[in-house]
């Protein structure tokens, strides 16, 4: 196994494939992950994007269409199948060499409604790259719970009330579910570590698919924090151990960022309105879960 290489800041491409003046919210983590991902993918990329926040940035409304790569808006539930079809056609026509066929989908479109098409495409081993931007809820329809919403979070469908408050179930572990398909490559990433993220994207393009990259993408609107805090929060997620950076290449696991001394999760949680209702006992519970996960984690 060849580990992915962290791309040094000054080697990151200056070419902007996301146009200025799109409709994304200020401080949007998804927009940052899209921009970073395209810097790693380059212009010979076909992108399929399902419903969610990303079409708002990359798909209009007409005449605003925000990307400088061929982009196909697809249905919410079938990104995996769309890119499988695109890849098959390009392959048959002898046009696939040097082209990245990429799905870029939200956590809902990936872990919930789209998981079947994703699983099928990975099982059939299409030469595709699937990137999930994880803002931990359905933001486009107004902050509803998704399978990857973390334990303890407020959303509009897990509202804080006197009887039931916040999401009671833990985050669906999508990278591990995908890893169980034994793809070429699975990795997690964070927009606060662009060199690591872009290095992983490049690794995926070198290896050929199926590859999966799950990038943690804070959302100021849904998580209730000021838009200038996006990167800080993304970084804290990693430094507190709430989000781990690793990669699995042909079944071999590697932690790509060692966090020698994890910060307390409270530092991450307290910056976000979606966790405001948590009691010290709730926070302790979350800390215990994170500690347990890290102990179970291969080094």
């Amino acid at each position, binding site marked *: 196994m060849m580990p992915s290489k962290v791309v040094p800041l000054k080697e990151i491409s200056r070419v902007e494939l996301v146009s200025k003046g799109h409709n994304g919210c200020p401080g949007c983590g998804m927009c940052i992950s899209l921009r970073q991902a395209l810097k790693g993918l380059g*212009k*010979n990329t*076909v992108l*399929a994007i399902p419903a969610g926040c990303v*079409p*708002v940035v*990359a*798909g*209009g*409304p*007409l005449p605003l*269409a925000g*990307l*400088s*790569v*061929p*982009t*196909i*808006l*697809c*249905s919410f*539930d*079938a990104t*995996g*199948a*769309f*890119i*499988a*079809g*695109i890849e*098959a*056609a*390009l*392959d*048959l*026509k002898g*046009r696939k060499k040097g*082209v990245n066929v990429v799905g870029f989908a939200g956590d809902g479109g990936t872990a919930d409604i789209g998981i*079947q*098409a994703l*699983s*099928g495409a990975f*099982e*059939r081993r299409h030469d595709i790259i699937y990137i999930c931007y994880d803002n931990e809820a359905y933001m486009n329809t107004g902050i509803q719970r998704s399978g990857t919403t973390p334990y303890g979070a407020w959303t509009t469908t897990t509202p804080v009330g006197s009887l039931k408050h916040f999401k009671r179930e833990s985050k669906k572990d999508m990278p591990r579910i995908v890893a169980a398909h034994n793809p070429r490559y699975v990795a997690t990433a964070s927009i606060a570590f662009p060199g690591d993220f872009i290095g992983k994207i490049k690794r995926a393009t070198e290896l050929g698919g199926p590859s999966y990259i799950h990038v943690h993408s804070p959302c100021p609107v849904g998580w209730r924090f000021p838009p200038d805090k996006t990167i800080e929060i993304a970084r804290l997620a990693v430094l507190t151990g709430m989000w781990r950076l690793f990669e699995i290449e042909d079944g071999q696991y590697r932690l790509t960022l060692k966090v020698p001394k994890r910060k307390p999760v409270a530092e991450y949680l307290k910056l976000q309105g979606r966790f405001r209702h948590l009691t010290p006992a709730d926070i302790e519970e979350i800390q215990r879960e994170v500690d347990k996960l890290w102990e179970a984690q291969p080094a």
Partner: protein
Amino acid sequence: MMEQLTRSGNEAAALGAKLSRAEVIAAYPITPSTFIVEYLAQYIADGELKAKLINVESEHSAMSACIGASLAGARTFTATSSQGLALMHEMLHWAVGARTPVVMAVGNRALAPPWNLYANHQDSIAQRDTGWIEFYCENNQEVLDTIIQAYKVAEDKRVLLPAMVCLDGFILTHTRERVDVPPQDAVDEYLPPYRPEHFVIDFDRPLTENVIVTPAWYMEYQYQLEVAMRNAREVIREANRDFAKKFNRDWGGLVDSYFMEDAEVAIMAMGTIAGTARVAVREMRKAGHKVGLIKLRAFRPFPIEEIRKLGSQLKVLAVIDRNCVFGSGGASCIEAQSALYSIPNRPKVLGFIAGLGGKDVGVESIKYILNKALKVSETGRVEREVEWVNLVGGE
């Protein structure tokens, strides 16, 4: 040299796709259309067809993969039935809106519950408003020929809409008939390769497909679909004419008429019922009745002009539907009524629901219907607008 062999409808459909040189095929099995993809898989495995077969995990993904492949420039094909077609419903809209000329064989089958595997047009009729072109076939030869014609129509620049070719479950899908298989080079002359005008995947001139639009523009896009569907009428007639010239088989275009020159009473039917109706009409003609048959070949676009022209000479039109728009009668009957409403000498229209879930519609059933229609033409009195034929318990 034409090859003459007995083929099932499923094999005829697969041969149609093969002769059309489908490039990407994505499908999920469902009775009674399963064999179509199995045949295609075998052609590919034997090196007779250069195509990619994607064995997807659902019909929803089958149609999604076809749309993706079509946008990437490939000629695409799939096949399904019943529950599978229902699961595709969302993606049928996507195929239309993305203007992808996907061609799909539909082995018509009833929808559950109660479970039933047999012929019923409800599955494809329920897709009426998605914007797909819909052809219904009378026999296996027509299945093969119509798939080739469907590509010709779907890929025409004036149309660019997906098309389904429907064949009655088991009655055609599993029954062997003589089928003439045209030579590949003749089909190649008739159907040139699919070349999308705007190639979506151009890295120096990147396009965004299926953009988001505001209300101001959405309606303009929808209007383009309406125009395309209207254009499809003439393109289907043309495709049929050209086909007839080249292959010596004329399926009539949007409709086929039989003994209609001087008919006063006619029966209208789709699919295999039309084949049975031919026999009934012939026999009733021998007995001296001025009856005829209008076979509806294209349900979408609906052949309004043809129906008006043929209908204006009639006293009574009896329409058989192997489907039901619950509460209103059969779908093609409603369409015919609406097409005929504005002509000055419109005939009386009688609706009959028959053959649901594979229930047999024999020559006797059709004669029963024609006799009812003859009676109405004599008395001028319509007692019942919609009748369910051959119900076990009666209506």
